[in-house]
């Protein structure tokens, strides 16, 4: 019954997401400087870097919130730069936010919001409770429940979001993004502020999503342990520039990366703080040492 809309997009395999020489400037500050990378279809691509490296700016360019001064972003053949955020969403590119942004209401309401781009009911048909609007709502609610189950939120489906724990609210964000049936999922610090148990659960959820849905994931994260375990490829930014790129193992050994995280002349000793707010178990410094 819900297969109609979901199948159409799910059947399409994700296409490569290409970031090509993107530069973003804010009043004299260059937040991104000539950054390029390509997210291979179906892969998990991590973008890491110290605070202020331009990771969030990068995400904002991908989702259309910032327009780059130069450079392009392409999804397959479709150019994303210059498109309004809601058009990019309609192409199947969903994102979550670093600080949780949910809407008042139940978990179900939030997930149904995620299906906005996939549904049609307008003001008139909703106001008059026209049959097709009612049917559409029912079908998509069923799919939203499936997605809630996928991320482990089924018990809370009818609960107000405000009553949930921090970890569960993070999950709501991810489920809402998944409700778009995305082909590219942008996760902005999915485990920030979580305790160890919550982190482990979040990693499990990301693994499940990846195994069950045909999508590419772009991940911004401070937690190096998580990045090393999940990512197929890693791009490292520092002060808006790409300083390294490769598999997690390659990046971990890259001297430029060590310097960016630990400062110049660091030998991998001492109290390494790879970035504020990072109580992650494994830092690149420690692992490389």
């Amino acid at each position, binding site marked *: 019954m819900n297969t109609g809309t979901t199948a159409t997009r799910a059947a399409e395999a994700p296409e490569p997401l290409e970031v090509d020489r993107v530069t973003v400037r804010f009043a004299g500050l260059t937040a991104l400087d000539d950054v390029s990378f390509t997210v291979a279809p179906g892969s998990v691509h991590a973008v890491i870097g110290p605070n202020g490296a331009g990771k969030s700016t990068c995400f904002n360019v991908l989702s259309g919130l910032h327009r780059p001064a130069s450079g392009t972003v392409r999804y397959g053949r479709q150019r994303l730069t210059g498109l309004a955020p*809601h058009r990019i969403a309609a192409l199947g590119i969903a994102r979550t936010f670093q600080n949780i942004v949910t809407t008042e209401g139940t978990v179900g309401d939030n997930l149904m919001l995620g299906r*906005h*781009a996939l549904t049609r009911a307008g003001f008139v048909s*909703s106001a008059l409770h026209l049959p097709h609007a009612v049917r559409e709502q029912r079908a998509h609610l069923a799919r939203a429940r499936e997605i809630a189950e996928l991320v482990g939120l089924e018990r809370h489906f009818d609960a107000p979001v405000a009553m949930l724990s921090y970890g569960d609210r993070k999950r709501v964000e991810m489920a809402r993004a998944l409700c778009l049936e995305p082909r590219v999922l942008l996760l902005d610090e999915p485990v920030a502020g979580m305790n160890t148990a919550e982190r482990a659960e979040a990693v499990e959820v990301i693994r499940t999503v990846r195994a069950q849905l045909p999508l590419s994931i772009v991940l911004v994260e401070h937690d190096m342990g998580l990045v090393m375990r999940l990512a197929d490829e890693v791009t490292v930014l520092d002060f808006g520039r790409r300083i390294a790129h490769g598999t997690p193992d390659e990046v971990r050994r890259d001297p430029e990366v060590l310097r960016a995280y630990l400062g110049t002349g660091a030998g991998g000793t001492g109290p390494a703080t790879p970035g504020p707010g990072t109580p992650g178990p494994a830092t690149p410094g420690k692992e490389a040492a």
Partner: protein
Amino acid sequence: MSDAAKHLPRLTAAVVPLLVLCALPFYLESYWLRIGLFSMAAAIGAIGLSLLSGTAGQLSMGHAFFLAVGAYGYVWFSGDPGPGLPPVVAMVLAVLLAGAAGGLFSPVAGRVKGMYLGIATLALVFIGHHLMLTLDGVTGGFNGRSVEPMEIGGLVLDSGRDDLVVLGVPFGAEERLWYFGLVLLAFTWFTARGLLRGRPGRALAALRDSETAASVMGVPVARHRSSAFVVSSMYAGLAGVLIALSFRRVVPDHFGLVLSIDYLAMIVIGGLGSVGGAVAGAFFVTALPLVMAKYADQLPLVAAPGSPDGSLGPTEASRYLYGAAIVVILLWAPDGLHGLARRLRSRLRSRLRREPPAPPHGPGPAEPVTPAPTTTAPSVPVKEHTP
């Protein structure tokens, strides 16, 4: 058992107040019916404003303007200087006209948000007032115009021409309009619920809570903001038509800034973003001053109208009381009557759960609360003051 049992209380909560409302014209004098009519008109307008300000988070001070467009639109479309169309057609056109007026403002309404829109819409009230005074041919200028009565299928919703008696009760203008008002209010309720619980309502709430998140979820920001404004204007237009019909005369001074502020008071008192709350708030703001004015002379320390200066007249006394009531509500229930009803209901429910043996009659003190879920709240003030 589960389905029928689950729906039964909800069904009763919807049907019982409706039956009570339908029966009221057989028991109430026309004074009370008129208060009810004003309240119904206000409720329709308040639902529209609640959709815009409560759900979409867009402040509008221009609601009085759209009420005026609806009222004057109806008068002109159905009246003598004007095409003199059948009243029902005139009503539909008046609502569409209000929507079109909202649409004309939508380049502003789609781009300007929150508080700033409130200031921008202030201009509408003044422009509207100026137009009402100067466009004599359409609006009748300062003295306004009298309103053609509504006519449906040959039945004129006015007293005089025919003597309609139903079950021994003479049906004058108020009795007939009462049912018409009920139908309009029910229609408004039905459509607004559909909007709020459907895709547009979710998108508007998302816009209110975070524009960025909403746009990333696929909600076109400007288009939804303007749509909310247009829909809210159309409800205001419908309310304007009912206001015109129940006052039987429209004058420019009614549609001033104070009216806009009254509507904001309604949705804040009722509870932002809820249909039932908007209706309850509308009854509170519209009916309470009138009811208090009626009984103010029976209060202690209140002088008869026309007493020498310095004594407290009934009008002033009712205003003080009304003001105090607003303060009390906002202190005790900052989320409005809607939030108050919800809390009472959940408290009642948890108490019932704790004492399962006696669910039908429940604990004594909670008894009077039972008929006061949001849906029935509007009928309460009317019932209480039956003479």
